[in-house]
């Protein structure tokens, strides 16, 4: 279902048409997606349009920042290990 939303979003009706399950089941799936904050629902007139949310990770920090944090943490641990070794 998410694959289908990836390019430019979809309406609830479009999603339902593409899946061999009841509209109720589709709605249930969509609620799970909304709860997980993966999907955002915009209501324009009678049309409920669903789009993918940017990842929470992406909202907080770019990918480079994520890697920077990874290496800062790794080097913190390396530094701690080196210090501990010296004390022995």
């Amino acid at each position, binding site marked *: 279902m*998410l694959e289908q939303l990836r390019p430019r979003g979809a309406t609830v009706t479009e999603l339902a048409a593409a899946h061999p399950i009841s509209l109720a089941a589709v709605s249930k799936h969509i609620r799970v997606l909304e709860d997980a904050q993966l999907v955002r629902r915009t209501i324009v007139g009678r049309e409920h349009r669903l789009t993918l949310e940017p990842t929470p990770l*992406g909202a907080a920090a770019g*990918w480079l920042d*994520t890697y920077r944090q990874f*290496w800062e943490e*790794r*080097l913190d641990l390396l*530094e701690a290990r080196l210090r501990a070794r010296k004390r022995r």
Partner: protein
Amino acid sequence: MIDPQAIEIHRRLPAPIGEVFRWWTDPDLLKEWMTPVGTVEADVDLRVGGRLRIVMKGEGRVIEHTGEYLEIDPPRRLVFTWVSPYTGSVPSVITVELRAAGDGLTDLRLVHAQLPDEAARWHRGGWDAMLDRLGSRLHETEGLQHAG
């Protein structure tokens, strides 16, 4: 000379240069610090063209990193590629440079280059994990529905 898809980090470490180099290249020592969570498996074939493999395991996740040594100049310089589920379509490249700073200390410079751009991150980074999580959630609701 840093391209936009690179990060650079400097650190002064409390050990002599040779020892710091060993902590970057000895698999038993790498295991001590090369993971954010859980445990590490490390295989190292320390020669130019040799492979490295680091598997980080923890919190229900297994993240495999593989790479190839491009330059080995002990104890000053180490260059290797780094491929993980979170890097881009081309291997990222890590350069570690060490310099003796006196008093048994070592200055480290780490450059991680050729990281994926934002578009690649969108597809590879966050979303793969999200889709996994989503898959299991959907299974749960599917189960409930069939049961009801």
